[in-house]
């Protein structure tokens, strides 16, 4: 399967109008119809939301990538989760919901509300602990690692990758 990425964009046209009037439209989604898209492939436009990983910086994820399961300070196990958003998603008090899904079942479901940090033309956060309640259930298996964001204006966007949790 070419891609299970699902940047399902539910973006309000009104929110797009002002920045588009300013010029290039870089950073804008190419489709606002709620259907799947791949911004990177559709003309090289940056996606409004991107799921990633990383403890010290945002690291992009690729489909099929292995991701280490990390032993936590209090005996739990987690994946490092990260998010990167661009306009029109408002990075202030952004709701970030990460999930690990396997065969239609939810293996982890963690939600944060954060004000993201600007890095160039994007806003990001990393080192989020996607706690796995049962790491044995996902270790070595291809799962969907999914991010859904909702900003304070109600704009939503999503992204997902197929990853394989490994170790420890």
């Amino acid at each position, binding site marked *: 399967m070419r891609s299970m990425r699902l940047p399902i964009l539910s973006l309000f046209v009104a929110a797009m109008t002002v920045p588009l009037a300013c010029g290039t439209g*870089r950073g804008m989604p190419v489709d606002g119809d709620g259907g799947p898209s791949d911004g990177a492939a559709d003309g090289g436009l940056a996606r409004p939301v991107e799921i990633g990983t990383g403890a010290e910086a945002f690291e992009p994820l690729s489909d099929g990538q292995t991701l280490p399961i990390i*032993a936590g*300070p*209090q005996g739990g196990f987690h994946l490092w989760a990260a998010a990167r958003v661009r306009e029109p998603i408002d990075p202030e008090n952004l709701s970030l919901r990460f999930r690990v899904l396997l065969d239609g079942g939810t293996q982890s479901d963690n*939600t944060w509300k954060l004000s993201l940090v600007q890095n*160039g033309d994007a806003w*990001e956060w990393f*080192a989020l602990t996607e706690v796995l309640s049962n790491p044995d259930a996902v270790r070595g298996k291809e799962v969907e690692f999914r991010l859904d964001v909702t900003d304070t204006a109600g704009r939503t966007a999503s992204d997902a990758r197929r990853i394989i949790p490994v170790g420890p």
Partner: protein
Amino acid sequence: MNARTRPLAALCWSALALSASTACGPTAGSPGGCSEVTCAGCCAEDGTCVAQTSATACGAAGAACVACQEGETCEAGACVAAQAQCPAPSSAAPSARSDFALAFDPVGRQLVVFGGDPGVAVSCMPDPKFEGETWFYDVDCGVWTRSAEPGPSARARLAGAFDTRRRRFLVFGGRYRAQSSGAYTNYNEVWALTFGANGSKAHAWDPLVTSGEPPPAMSSTVAVYDEADDQLIVFGGNASTSGLSYAPNANVWALSLSDNVWTELVPKGTKPPAREFHAAVIDPKRHALVVFGGGDANAFTGPFLSDTWSFSLDTHEWTKLATTGPVPRGRIRGALAVDPERDRVLLFGGHDDGQIGERNDLWSLDFASGTWTRLREGDVFNTAGAGFCDFPSDFVTPDPDSPERREAHGLVTVPGRGIFLFGGRSDCGNLNDVWLLDPETATWRNQKPTFSGLSCQRSGKSGCTTLCF
């Protein structure tokens, strides 16, 4: 819409600004007849219009061009103080860490961080690791920059101080091991990170060639710069290379920075108990080293030290302070910073031997009276753990206006701004946040968030069931 800078909006405004300046018309070179009618910029002595004004020719609406003074730029035809040229916002930062060396470079207006321990405990068991990076934090722009210059090898639990006479950051001691078990290598070398002249950001690390009898190689010591006598003062520390025992001392050494000679300062009278993991500053008015807390040979479990001592750098006499009144609970790995305007020193955080462990309380010690006052209580212990490494999410009632509870962090005074806090170790990992304390009001303001190390309640996560994860 939030108040942050938005790239597209910024682009739009830039375009508008560009259009406006273009509309004003670059007419420089038109001979004679320069006036408010013909010139949107300023008129040079030869009667030409300077449309593209600058610090050397500044003015507007056909006024005579003037040269701005040093430190000024020409903005909209008027000379104004130059603003700091800040780099673009970035999420770049040192990795979350504890046990580093920190100081303030007053000329470059930057915090300097070297080394540290980024290791995160696994199931509450420490996992020491070591950094050899040097980072700078611009206190005006709020931006981190990593040095590309080679420096000392990776180490943690070292001490550092800023030699203001020579504009250089000095580090002493520390420990390292390549494996995850076995003996540590302790250091007693001194390295200097020297900055360029005239406020230059250029810098280079060099080992200091010293003579005399140096302190033993050790970690978890303190080093402070005594500007009055131009010397680096080192007190106490742990000379053990074992991770399972401590070998503290109670000795004071001075490294004369005019000739790089080490001398042990033999004290008169009673010495404080030997210690490591303590904190110290210079009391500049009384020319004394002031020391608080730490641990002795039982520093794994405590009880930890809660005593406060002053060592006169003139008479070499120790005096015990704070013998009456409240005192901070005994702790290891707390941090002190001088509040010179109020002639006192502030204590933040550390690890106590009570129920709460990591602390985020704030205290002040009045230098003149030698008495402590609690300024902020910080988090309050709430619910005990169910067992080893099994802490509930409501372990404490957080003080949301204080930084996360922590130990082995850095605290440094920035004159005119306040006291900066960076990093440290929490129950839930390591931190790399930056906070600024207004010492007058005991108010904290977050300057940079941490990406890790926060307890679940502080992390923005919903549905917390445990303290960490």
